[in-house]
């Protein structure tokens, strides 16, 4: 008890600690908050040098697009209840409807469905209702903060960004699934083999991890483009052109990500006592059976944490996807880079900002959902190697 009391911090320290945290959170969130604000304004406001003009958007308001006091009040209330729902109601629903034991799958589906429902509610249902009410209210219904969603509709509807979104989903899902399948096998093998070969494999993997990617990627391009010619002697007319194919990009991303994946999974496996698989082996399991039926069930925290890192890598990749995918299969990040390089107008730039916010929004959801997993996964011993 007395120890706990001495652990308690003096007021001054507490105050400065909290001030430090507040400043850090401000620095961490501000740039992202700011691009979100920019994405809702007309170009003149978005790039104004006076921050107040960016926040309140006089030009946007002058164009008749904005939020009234009522909108803001209702909006904040709606956001509050959505957050409440996400924290209190969603986990229960996920737990109830998840297929036995596979709670992570439930979370993915649940989070997606929830996200879509929120978007539909906030951008589809609310505006017309509030618009009607605002019309009746008179001065209270006048917009006070400029806000327009025109850039989002330009990005998602006119520029068909949903196609890039689907491509991103395809690539990331592929990368996560294959990366984990291949990685868990290798991680387990490396963790359970104390041989020098295993050690050197790990060291080589570490050096591969340090490689500059641009070197590898530039090497792929000519080979991928001409792959039909190279492979024809082996595969005949079925020889594919790898350039532009999502599965080729998945293979590349999986490989580039392997070093990190196997290191991380290896440390997880090392923390699982070897007695467990030895017992299974005594019961007559092969190595593989022991791996599949005894070890994997206790490995989920590690797999989820590693999977998240694979997801981030695939989702955020620019170098590989921009070079090796054609326009039809383009994922989101290279698509947004396209906005900046072409002969851009200021409107294009704000649309690019809107696209950027659209790209990071799912990541927000992801962290919200998996935050605890990340911390507990890492605590469970990801990083003891």
């Amino acid at each position, binding site marked *: 008890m007395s120890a706990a009391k001495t652990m308690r911090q003096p007021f001054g320290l507490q105050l400065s600690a909290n001030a430090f945290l507040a400043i850090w959170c401000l620095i961490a969130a501000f740039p992202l908050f700011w691009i979100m604000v920019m994405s809702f304004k007309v170009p003149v406001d978005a790039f104004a040098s006076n921050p107040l003009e960016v926040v309140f958007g006089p030009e946007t308001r002058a164009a008749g697009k904005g939020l009234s006091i009522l909108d803001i009040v209702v909006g904040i209330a709606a956001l509050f209840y959505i957050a409440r729902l996400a924290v209190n109601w969603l986990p229960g629903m996920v737990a109830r409807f998840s297929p036995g034991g596979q709670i992570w799958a439930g979370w993915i589906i649940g989070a997606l469905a929830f996200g*879509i429902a929120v978007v*539909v509610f906030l951008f589809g249902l609310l505006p017309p209702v509030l618009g009607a009410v605002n019309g009746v209210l008179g001065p209270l219904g006048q917009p006070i903060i400029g806000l327009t969603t025109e850039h989002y509709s330009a990005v998602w509807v006119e520029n068909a960004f*949903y196609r890039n979104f689907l491509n991103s989903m395809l690539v990331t899902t592929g990368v996560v699934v294959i990366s984990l399948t291949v990685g868990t096998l290798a991680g387990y093998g490396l963790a359970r083999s104390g041989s020098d070969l295993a050690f050197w494999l790990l060291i080589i993997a570490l050096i591969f991890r340090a490689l500059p990617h641009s070197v590898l990627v530039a090497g792929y391009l000519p080979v991928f483009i001409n792959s039909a010619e190279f492979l024809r002697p082996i595969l005949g007319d079925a020889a594919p*052109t790898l350039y532009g194919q999502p599965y080729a990009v998945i293979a590349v991303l999986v490989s580039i990500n392997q070093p990190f994946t196997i290191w991380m999974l290896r440390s997880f496996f090392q923390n699982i006592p070897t007695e467990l698989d030895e017992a299974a082996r005594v019961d007559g399991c092969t190595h593989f059976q022991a791996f599949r039926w005894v070890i994997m069930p206790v490995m989920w925290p590690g797999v989820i944490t590693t999977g998240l890192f694979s997801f981030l890598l695939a989702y955020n990749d620019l170098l590989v996807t921009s*070079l090796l995918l*054609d*326009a039809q299969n383009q994922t989101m990040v290279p698509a947004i880079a396209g906005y900046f*390089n072409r*002969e851009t107008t*200021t409107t294009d730039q704000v649309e690019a900002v809107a696209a950027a916010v659209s790209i990071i929004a799912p990541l927000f959801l992801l962290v919200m959902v998996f935050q605890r997993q990340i911390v507990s996964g890492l605590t469970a011993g990801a990083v003891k190697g």
Partner: protein
Amino acid sequence: MIFKKLALAGAMALLSSAAYADCAFENTVPVKSISAGFEAWKAVTDAMAECGNVEAELDQEFRKKQPAAFAANPSLYQIGGVANGTLVPLLNEGTIRPLDDLVAAHGQNLTPNQLIKIDGEVMAVAMMVNTQHLMYRDDILSDLGIAVPTTYDEVLAAAAKIKEAGVVEYPLGGTFKTGWNLGEEFVNMYFGFADSMFADDSMPTINNENGVAALEMLKKLTEYMDPEYLVSDSTYVQQQFQQGKIAIANLWASRAGAMNDESESQVVGKVKMASAPAAKAGGRPASTIWWDGVVIAKNITDEEAEAAFKVAMEGLDEEMVTANNDIAVWLIPGYVPGDLAKGAADTAINGAVSYPASSQMGLMHTALGNGVADFLTGAKDAQTTLADIEAEYITAAKEAGLIQ
């Protein structure tokens, strides 16, 4: 709801393309194109798509992909969008086909000016020209009683006056972003002073009084610019114009339209166009002329080539130009040059050279783009800068086998 909206949008897109589908023929052969992604290409490829079975790729990485994709057998694309520079690798590798017979059969609407001929053979069909020329705030210049500058010395004098009057934050703007843009600025200026950058044996000849004069002129210009000029590309300069922060710049013709875009610009109607200034009095405009156009791949069947060419002709027809008159300086019949095109036309008429694209020029442009900044930041003097650029060029050219 959102899905309904999306579905609706998709249906609308289909409907509208059906409504616009006034292509003269129905294309049945699948055709793919790859090109840069600016407005003019978007307009052209949209018009091509009306014929059906056309997949257009407007790709930022097209410079890296195009030569390799055309060299594949069969070529991954039938139609390519090229400019002076990007035509070179395709010509060198022989991956595009001569178009004389196709032009004879389907090119009745083309003007002779559009046909890019190499040794008498038509290798590409140009659709537009682009060049950097003078844009200026007419209101500021006439308020201060400054005549439209025709040489860079006059530009500097005008800038000094504007600075003194203090009407804008920085009198000049410039696309001085390190890399391609800065290289292009030097090339423009250099050709205002001299005729060639190379001797007959591909050795560089820029380290002379012309090179020094060009560098020094660039540096004098930067004194009147936003100090962040080394990161300013054409979009940035365009924004500076639109927000009324600069008064004069030598900017791409394709950017002229944005000055009068009411949703972005605060200076609608106030920016006028003129010929690029000369580097020295009585000289030619210090600017180079670029063209953009289409090529057809060699490694495809004749049937595909014919379909591709016909589709391309639909993309380059009068209808497209009428609908998109102001987004570029078109070479296509039916184009009505407006006030905005005056700058580009005058620059050409006053004798600006066409950008002399070649393998050597490509290497030189890169060396310049990376090297000139050292002089502007004061890290090196003019002689050393030029000597280093030449050395860099020679290393690269030796590596490429251009110099023995």
